[in-house]
């Protein structure tokens, strides 16, 4: 019965509230800019509108163009089900599920980038090239971070690594998880195409990364992409929140903690976006290599 309750909350919270994160971030940015900003629920309105709209397809495109949004959304959705959001209860959990998480995101990337190339547009080609290039640099630190947690928790299953882990990470080996936290925060910004890596609000196609890949998508397909992106932000946010907040003794108390944490991530994102300038494109790889090194130091600190 407990599992049923936990799993229902898991599904409702993740799938229902993921779009809210971006609304909060945008509100924060607006507050910093002295504007009123769009309503917190703006993404819900956008999604509702997009799912009712018709679409325009380029004559160049093939089935891959529609496969991109579908695969992107489905892989993110399954990843959400792999996350330990509260304690050790996870809808889907098995040995090696961190690898499943990483590779599902890879599958989404493969099809999103291919769908971009399907249009034959030079801008979308550019976006796809940047996306896969930065992913090559963002994935190793992510995996290294997972390995640090695997070593600390003596297990390779997310429900233990980030859920019920018996090892109190922060007291026993505080530096390593702290480095992983910084590294993962950088990865959150890259993977979700936020400032300083990519500006979701930029108006110039030449400088975009993620936005330019989906230039040609419209209607329900674009809605799927936006929702998939919201889920992806939720995934990385939740990983960070779970790393910071150890599980409480009563499982149900973890849910409000998670909500507070996610609120913090969304506001933090807004603060970062408001106070930082965008990096030059050529500097992004250096920054990601730094993330890799941080995770690497996290590994080294555990060598003793």
């Amino acid at each position, binding site marked *: 019965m407990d599992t049923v309750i936990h799993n229902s909350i898991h599904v409702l919270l993740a799938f229902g509230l993921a779009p809210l994160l971006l609304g909060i971030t945008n509100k924060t940015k607006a507050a910093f800019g002295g504007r009123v900003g769009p309503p917190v629920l703006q993404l819900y309105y956008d999604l509702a509108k997009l799912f*009712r*709209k*018709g*679409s*325009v*397809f380029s*004559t160049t495109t*093939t089935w*891959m163009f*529609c*496969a991109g*949004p*579908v*695969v992107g*959304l*489905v892989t993110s*959705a*399954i990843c959400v089900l792999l996350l330990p959001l509260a304690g050790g209860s996870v809808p*889907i959990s*098995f*040995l*090696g*599920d961190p*690898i499943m998480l990483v*590779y*599902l995101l*890879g*599958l989404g990337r*493969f099809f999103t*980038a*291919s769908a971009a*190339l*399907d*249009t*034959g*547009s*030079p*801008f979308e*080609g550019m976006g*796809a*090239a940047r996306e*896969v*290039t930065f*992913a*090559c640099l963002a*994935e*190793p630190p992510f*995996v*290294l971070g997972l*390995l640090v947690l695997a*070593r600390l928790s003596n297990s*390779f299953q997310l429900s233990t690594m980030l859920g019920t882990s018996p090892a109190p990470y922060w007291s026993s080996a505080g530096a390593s998880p702290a480095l992983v936290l910084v590294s993962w925060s950088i990865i959150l910004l890259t993977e979700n195409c936020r400032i300083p890596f990519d500006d979701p609000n930029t108006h110039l*196609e030449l400088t975009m990364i993620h936005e330019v890949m989906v230039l040609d998508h419209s*209607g329900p397909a674009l809605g*799927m992409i936006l929702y998939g992106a919201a889920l992806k932000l939720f995934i990385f946010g939740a990983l960070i929140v779970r790393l910071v907040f150890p599980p409480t003794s009563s499982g149900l108390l973890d849910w409000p903690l998670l909500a507070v944490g996610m609120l913090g991530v969304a506001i933090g994102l807004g603060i970062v976006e408001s106070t930082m300038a965008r990096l030059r494109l050529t500097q992004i*790889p250096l920054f990601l290599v730094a993330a890799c090194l941080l995770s690497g130091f996290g*590994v*080294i600190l*555990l060598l*003793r």
Partner: protein
Amino acid sequence: MTERLLLCAIALAAVSGMPGVALGRKSMAGQWIAAVLAIVGSGLGLAGLVFFWMFDDSQPVVIPWHLPGAEFNVAIDGLSAVFLVPIFVVTMMGQVYGLAYWKQTDYPQNGRKLRFFYGLMTAGMALLVVARNGILFLFGWEMMAISAFFLVATEDEKPDVREAGWIYLVATHTATLGLIALFGLLHAASGSYTLAPLAEGSISPAMATSLFALALFGFGLKAGLMPLHVWLPGAHSNAPSHVSATMSGVIIKMGIYGLFRTLSLLPTPPIEWGVVIMTLGAISGVLGMAFALGQHDLKRLLAYCSIENIGIILLGLGLAVIGRSQGRADLVVLGVSGSLLHVWNHAFFKSLLFLSAGSVIHATHTREIDSMGGLAKAMPWTALAFVVGSVAICGLPPLNGFVSELMIYLGMVDLLQGSSAAFGGGALAAAALALIGTLAVACFVKAYGAVFLGVARSQSARQAHESGLPMLLALGVLSACCFAIALGPLALAPIFDRAVAVWAPDLPEAAPRLVTLAPLNWVTLMGGVLIAALIAGRLLLGALLRHNGSTRSVTWGCGYSAATPRVQYTSSSFAQMLVALFSWALRPQVERPKNLPLFPRAARFHSEVGDVVLDEAVLPSFSFAGWLFSRFRVFQQGNIQTYLLYIFIALIALLLWR
């Protein structure tokens, strides 16, 4: 029973191309005979394997042979059986594919030669895998290697092909040289050429290390291990595509088989061997993929990916060696199973990719990726097969590459709980594997995007057409193999457990099984869930699109609507950032216009990633050796009297010396 069926299969494969030689140059009869014989032969062989797995039936066939030390000794075991599967499946599909791809009527001048040697090569591979005698092994090995040379040089009227064939021949002979030394030394150590495990402590550590080093050199050269890969890209790209598929899918795996077999014969290895193998594997994996990213030639790109996959296989093998040296059964089981399953997986998805690349080349008459584009419309089935192969080679779920990579990851994670050194090494190796995976995604998005998506970049790509039924059939069967492995790995677990038992006979009886170490049931379940969710998502999107309506228009070009195919992002621009990141290893040759005037005229840009090891190490050292040996030419007088004088002097010198 199994051995007899296998010998029948080997004989059928060997003779499959021979009737065609006697038949006319313009007749398809010989080709059909070859295909039927290959199918029957492979069918018999696979039946034999099933028989072996079900009833554990093995009756070695031993026939005396006149050669000193040699013996016709053929037997099957769990390890051989694993390597026989790709040999039979891939060569069978290669022959079927060839029916439409390399029709005798289209290639009257070399079709018969091709099939003659294709059959011999198949037979040679199958023979070496079941051989239990060093000489017989070398016999099969050379049969495979020499036939492969003639296959690479099928179109020997082209200079590029001759050069690739030449480099291959030099490389394969160098490898054989190492193997002759290996078996000679093995004979010196054990007193016989029979391939039986050496007793613990029967040879000195120095001898064991020499044997290992020779095996790593000889078999590594054949497997295309970096930096011994120099022959591989040229040979794979210049051979006809079904030959490339066989070379990449199966022949290079014979090097892996050799390594597995040699390690199974040697006593418990020291941990350093495992570290060496894993390091070489990580280097081959990452750099192989980086080189692949820089290629413009579709088949060269795939060839470099073979090096990358050999790297992944070696990562698994290295884990197993470490496990054996430390007495860790879990590492042995996960390492050997992951590695061997990746041998299967790579055989299937790489031959699938090479064959679909062959279809593309058949349709467009070019190997240049940047002359293709938009082929998914003209060749939808080939495009689908290429997507299946690409997703599989990137190790992504729900396809087979994921299963073997997951096993190898789990092995590395098992290392994490050990000592500091084990943790550091395991973490590094896992990060390397993750990097390999993302580089593969970049590489195959580039390949699929530039070849199949967008708009055709050349006239020949515009006139492309879907390929014939036999070609599509081969693609379909190989795709089905990829899906089958991905969705039913549980059924394969006993096969790999058996191979583990052969490879590490010192493993305790109660050692954990693969099923308990890897979540194979979850792989199946998640694969099923993923596929079902994808279908559901696509149906949902389709319903929404139908309900809301959709229109067709041109691609958004920021307001510019007269775009030509030339504005598309090319494959080299796609890979440019990554190639720049790896430029320390790839050393790309870039030729760009300099000092452009204010109003530039037509300019030229050219970029190319050659093979660093071949161009900067092997070729210079060979030409130096050539120069050195040319100094000896003064002795080459050309008249027989002088040579007799040399012999006379040499004899006198020997007599004096003794």
